[in-house]
């Protein structure tokens, strides 16, 4: 092993070059049990770093209960909890199975997932279908209408999307994202343009492959009404890009950021699969009428994979409209992006910001720079109610705790003999 002689800067350039070179293609959909590596019937995937049931927050527990009901493994809430407490259900981070999920991120064996393939590096990543707004599983809701909605997505929408994608010969998500950034999206909290592009690209194929006009209409409406429709494939694409940057010897580039509602965790390219975690923070943002920060759950979800890949809050300057979430001015959006350049190792070759003279987005978070400046990555996020099943109560800005980066820096120094 090398001792203190490794060229970190060169390693970081390699990592970020791989991240930018990745070319994630949305190739289709499949049942998690069939396509996600290591998936099995009694396994539930969740967002963020590993966590046991005892420490799970309200929304994550709610999503677990909902998934067990959806899978038919339990008949009611009490049955679901009993099943878990008997130890009959295994939990694992989505990230351990090449998967990402927004908010609770709970993914079970029979759910349909998007399949994304990195055309350059060859690996595959996965994400479930976005449920839209309101009472949804990802915020821990598990009422009958939530489960009905899941069934509609998995049995009606997914097959049509799969056939349409097949007919379209796949869809280049990197190109879609690059275009969406020029249309006012930042790819995390704001996916209005991206979702419409998604709809535009698939609509001609949906019209042809849907079993009937009503189904085609339903699927088109699902895509058109849900401004987050493209978020999940985008997250899988970001996961594919981040995974390409993972495992570069001597690199301090952050390759994963994720939260499970209790802990915020990161992984680092040159430090293998080890998580560095600290208690997740409550986002600072605007709340829907009737809610306040007292209702907020600590930060949750795998969607920070967007910031990890150089979009989301890092591309704020491309999405001035989003500053309404934090009560700021468009100048604040520019400031947010400019600040992130100071902790990243490159400017993105493919994701550019018109308002900054088409400068590439800041990409490749460098552990060292985060600790040196005390500037943690910005994250745009939705805010979940701390109780299961209530749903989204607001949106805003959050930053990971500095401690996870400090801890990782110490581990890196030990690992490489600095």
């Amino acid at each position, binding site marked *: 092993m090398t001792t203190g002689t490794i060229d970190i800067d060169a390693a970081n350039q390699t990592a970020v070059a791989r991240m930018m070179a990745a070319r994630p293609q949305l190739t289709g959909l499949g049942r998690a049990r069939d396509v996600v590596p290591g998936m099995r019937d009694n396994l539930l995937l969740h967002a963020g770093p590993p966590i046991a049931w005892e420490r799970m927050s309200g929304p994550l527990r709610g999503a677990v209960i909902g998934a067990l009901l959806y899978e038919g493994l339990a008949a009611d809430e009490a049955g679901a909890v009993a099943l878990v407490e008997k130890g009959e259900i295994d939990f694992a981070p989505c990230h351990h199975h090449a998967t990402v999920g927004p908010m609770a991120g709970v993914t079970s064996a029979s759910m349909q997932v998007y399949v994304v393939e990195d055309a350059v590096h060859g690996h595959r990543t996965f994400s479930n279908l976005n449920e839209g707004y309101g009472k949804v599983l990802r915020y821990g809701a598990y009422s009958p209408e939530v489960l009905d909605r899941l069934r509609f997505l998995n049995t009606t929408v997914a097959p049509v999307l799969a056939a349409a994608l097949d007919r379209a010969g796949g869809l280049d998500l990197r190109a879609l994202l690059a275009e969406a950034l020029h249309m006012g999206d930042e790819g995390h909290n704001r996916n209005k343009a991206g979702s419409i592009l998604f709809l535009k690209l698939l609509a001609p194929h949906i019209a042809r492959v849907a079993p009937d006009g009503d189904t085609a209409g339903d699927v088109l409406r699902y895509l058109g009404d849900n401004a987050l429709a493209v978020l999940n494939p985008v997250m899988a694409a970001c996961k594919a890009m981040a995974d390409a940057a993972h495992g570069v010897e001597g690199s301090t580039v952050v390759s994963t950021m994720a939260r499970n509602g209790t802990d915020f965790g990161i992984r680092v390219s040159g430090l293998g699969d080890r998580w560095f975690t600290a208690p997740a923070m409550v986002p600072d943002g605007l709340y829907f009428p009737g809610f306040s920060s007292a209702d907020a759950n600590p930060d949750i979800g795998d969607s920070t994979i967007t910031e990890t890949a150089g979009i989301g809050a890092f591309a704020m300057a491309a999405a001035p409209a989003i500053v309404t979430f934090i009560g700021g001015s468009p100048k604040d959006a*520019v*400031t947010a992006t400019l600040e992130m350049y100071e902790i990243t190792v490159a400017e993105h070759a493919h994701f550019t910001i018109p308002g900054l003279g088409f400068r590439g987005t800041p990409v490749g978070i460098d552990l060292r720079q985060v600790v*040196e400046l005390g500037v943690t990555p910005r994250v745009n996020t939705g805010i979940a109610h701390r109780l299961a099943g209530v749903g989204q109560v607001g949106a805003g800005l959050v930053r990971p705790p500095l401690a996870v980066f400090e801890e990782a820096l110490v581990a890196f*120094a030990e690992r490489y003999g600095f």
Partner: protein
Amino acid sequence: MSAEPVVRTALRAGSYHDSVVLMQLQRALAALPGVLDAGVVMATPANRELLAASGLGSEVVAGPDDLLISVQAASEPAAAAALAAVDSLLRVRAAGTGADYRPRRLSTAVQQLPAARWVVVSVPGRYAADVAEEALDLGRNVFLYSDNVPVDREASLKRKARDRGLLVLGPDCGTAVLGGTGFGFSNRTRRGRIGLIGASGTGLQALLSYLDGDEAGISHAIGTGGRDLSAAVGGITASQALDLLRRDEDTDVLVLVSKPPAPEVTRRLLGEARAAGKPVIVCFLGAAPPGGGWGNVWFANSLEEARGYALKALQERVGASPPTTFSTGGRWVRGLFSGGTLALEILLCLGAVLTPVYSNIPVTADQRLPDPLKSQGHTILDLGADEFTVGRLHPMMDFDLRLRRLRQEAADPEVALILLDVVLGDGAHADPAGELAPGIERALTEARAAGRELAVAVLLIGTAADPQDLQEQSATLERSGARVVRTVGELVEHTWRCVGERPRDPAETALAPVPLEAIRDTRAVINVGIETFAASLAAQGAEVVQVDWRPPAGGNEKMAALLARMKR
């Protein structure tokens, strides 16, 4: 309810703020109801003593990177309320100034303002050298206001700057006016044709205001920092500044102000000053000047005298031709004087430019000649002193001792120049020149025979009416090969030209000269540290980017050390 006032403190660990912010916070806290007094400081030992002296002391454990807030209040609730307001008061300040993005790194600031040739650094001393070095690495000149930078770091920074054709003004540089823009503490002054170089900030400010009042004005004022002329630093910045102003066509007259420099630095600087091709007024405050002036170099005793000379030089455009230097091959000057006061004045004058000069009547104890019978290094002897005159006549009448000593000195191959005095008049020897001339001639002949170049200079004091015949005495001495001068000043200048002046080190002249744009183009400046500097630069019309600087890793030394190792 009248209780004793209470003192309560709060701490913000690793929280760096510039002193203006702290001042404003302190004022805001003191204005809160029930608060009698407030102190907001970075918790250095000195600051904590100051707090204690104002009755705001506390025992709380804190380090120099911690922000310590102390309030004295009429009641416990008033103190608690004041301390609770600290964070929101700090935030108000931050929001009020955050119009545009403030980069966290110097490199980002350079990207944001590529036209900036200057970086003003006023962060705490322990971090200042690193920031300055980064600025140099980014190809920028540095105005280094911070103090407490170790002198070896100063020297290495300045060597790096010199190698790259950049300037480091400071550390502890208070003042500069470059291209009409004032840096640090400076005065708004009219543009003129006098260029200032100063190791002292207030010295420069005094001259700025004097010359502005005189309606002369200045071209540039270049601060060097107080230690620049020390032996450790070697006057690198002062040399660069001399060279810049020499080449600057907006500058006709130069003024150099400093405390007395290290001797070797003096030698080089005066050599450079004399080669400047423009009048240079030199004011080494605290050292007796070596005379009134040497060609283009004039010596001033005070700032006010420097101002007077500068104005005179400006009007007369005098003394611009570079002097000739005499080369004698030897190294040392030996003075054999019959007049004690003459010897003393020579000593005082040479003391400013050649140190040490050993003597039996030394200016300082460490320059006392251990054995009056044996010279060492530069030596000036008063042969009229008691130890030489016991049992013999005064050397103004008896030349035996001086002739012997002349022979002794001339035999020393290290000696380049021998100084003698001849004092005519009633009571003195009837023909001093006749006594000395053969000895001088023999000394010079023998030296030439040995392949050495030796010189002898004689200070001749007397009047045309004196019985010895002044003209004839002078002619006799000159025929012997001596150079004859009539004042101490002339003798000092001649000595300087024979043994003092050192030609420029070729290694130094070969280095990259600082481009004149460095002092002419100050339209854009990057400020790291005290925000009022940014505000006053902006008020003068400069485009300024303020770096939102914090100590590395927030002052966490363990992390900072790790990062330093990982940077290689």
